[in-house]
């Protein structure tokens, strides 16, 4: 038996063991547990603000606090918005217009973006002369930058089309840790509320949980039948939500190491592009290729609302840290604030 064949058999046998171990703790399903719970009432959110200013498709949006957010568009700009007034606080021209992601640092001092240039560019918003300039260009990925998230003002995690995620030291511009293991483009990442772990979703149809400090992949979740485009932590950090081109979202529980529920409907046949949980986790807001955003009751897996108003694909979505509103960004070049 060749080595390859041996390894393949070993992998199959280990996967069977994991499947059995997951089954062994499945003494109940989430559906059974919440059988007596009522579905949450119909959720009807209204567009409160429309943020106008981008000239092309919007690819990403990220809240800095509950008022300021940053958006990235293929018009080659990052715009920082005051969502209460719709004023543009900063309009940052980018070297490369092929941007796919943006992020706001928790401190509010910096923003980052990247895309087909394979780099993550860090911008200092609080420079002495008031001008926003590139502070660092983090280059080493051999594929597009799909997502980035700050841990603090000196550390950022990126995910890439080169199938890896990287933890960077911003000051020195060097890679501290490379997280390898996915066998397809990494499309999205989310940092745990306690900043000790992060999750990645990829085109190999799996989601992985990584330990930030020791670089190990702790858990791998399968079940999706196509690329995972969106991923996020459930607010208490003990579960993960994914959105996929297979038209479904899934909730995976970290402690029992398995999928608890799938959010899907035979009427929905297009891919999920983005998702965000509401403040309590009771609602999951998910953006789809069909220009809508569906709102799911996370416990009962029923659709309880729709956000329609965009004239093209909803590419990104985010809920404010205080839970007061959600923002959708679209290929129609507009961002909308809903509550």
């Amino acid at each position: 038996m060749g080595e390859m064949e041996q390894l393949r058999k070993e992998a199959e046998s280990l996967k069977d063991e994991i499947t059995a171990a997951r089954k062994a703790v499945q003494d109940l399903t989430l559906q059974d547990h919440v059988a007596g719970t009522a579905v949450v009432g119909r959720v009807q959110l209204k567009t409160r603000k429309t943020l106008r200013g981008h000239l092309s498709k919007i690819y990403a949006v990220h809240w800095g606090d509950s008022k300021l957010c940053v958006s990235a568009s293929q018009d080659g700009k990052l715009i920082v918005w005051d969502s209460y007034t719709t004023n543009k606080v900063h309009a940052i021209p980018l070297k490369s217009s092929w941007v796919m992601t943006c992020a706001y640092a928790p401190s509010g001092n910096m923003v980052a973006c990247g895309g087909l240039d394979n780099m993550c560019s860090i911008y200092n918003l609080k420079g002495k002369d008031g001008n926003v300039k590139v502070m660092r260009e983090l280059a080493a990925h051999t594929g597009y930058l799909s997502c980035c998230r700050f841990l603090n003002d000196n550390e950022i995690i990126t995910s890439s089309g080169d199938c890896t995620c990287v933890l960077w030291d911003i000051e020195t511009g060097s890679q501290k840790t490379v997280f390898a293991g996915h066998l397809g483009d990494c499309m999205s990442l989310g940092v745990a509320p306690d900043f000790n772990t992060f999750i990645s979703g990829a085109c190999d149809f799996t989601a992985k949980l990584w330990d930030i400090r020791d670089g190990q992949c702790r858990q791998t979740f399968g079940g999706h039948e196509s690329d995972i485009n969106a991923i996020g932590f459930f607010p208490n950090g003990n579960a993960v939500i994914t959105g996929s081109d297979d038209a479904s979202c899934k909730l995976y529980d970290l402690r029992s190491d398995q999928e608890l529920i799938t959010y899907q409907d035979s009427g929905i046949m297009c891919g999920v592009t983005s998702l965000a949980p509401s403040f309590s986790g009771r609602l999951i807001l998910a953006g789809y290729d069909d220009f809508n955003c569906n709102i799911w009751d996370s416990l009962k897996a029923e659709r309880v609302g729709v956000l329609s108003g965009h004239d093209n694909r909803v590419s990104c979505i985010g809920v404010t840290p205080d839970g007061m509103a959600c923002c959708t960004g679209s290929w129609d070049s507009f961002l909308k604030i809903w509550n």
Partner: protein
Amino acid sequence: MPVINVEELTDLDKAKMEVTQLKTEVKLERAKVSKCCEEISEYIQSGADEDPLVKGIPEEKNPFKEKGGCVIC
């Protein structure tokens, strides 16, 4: 630490990586699903009543409310 170029890994390398990873994951201690469901639904139910997108926001408290209109104080 160099970036690992996944495109340069041979099928054999990938298979070895996969087996090593599976050996780590098989050892995971898994909690009972019933207990996890309990925790998730408790967390949600304790917060859902105060979740602004679930219960709605009174107009005077909504920082995003549309401008215009008169307010009688």
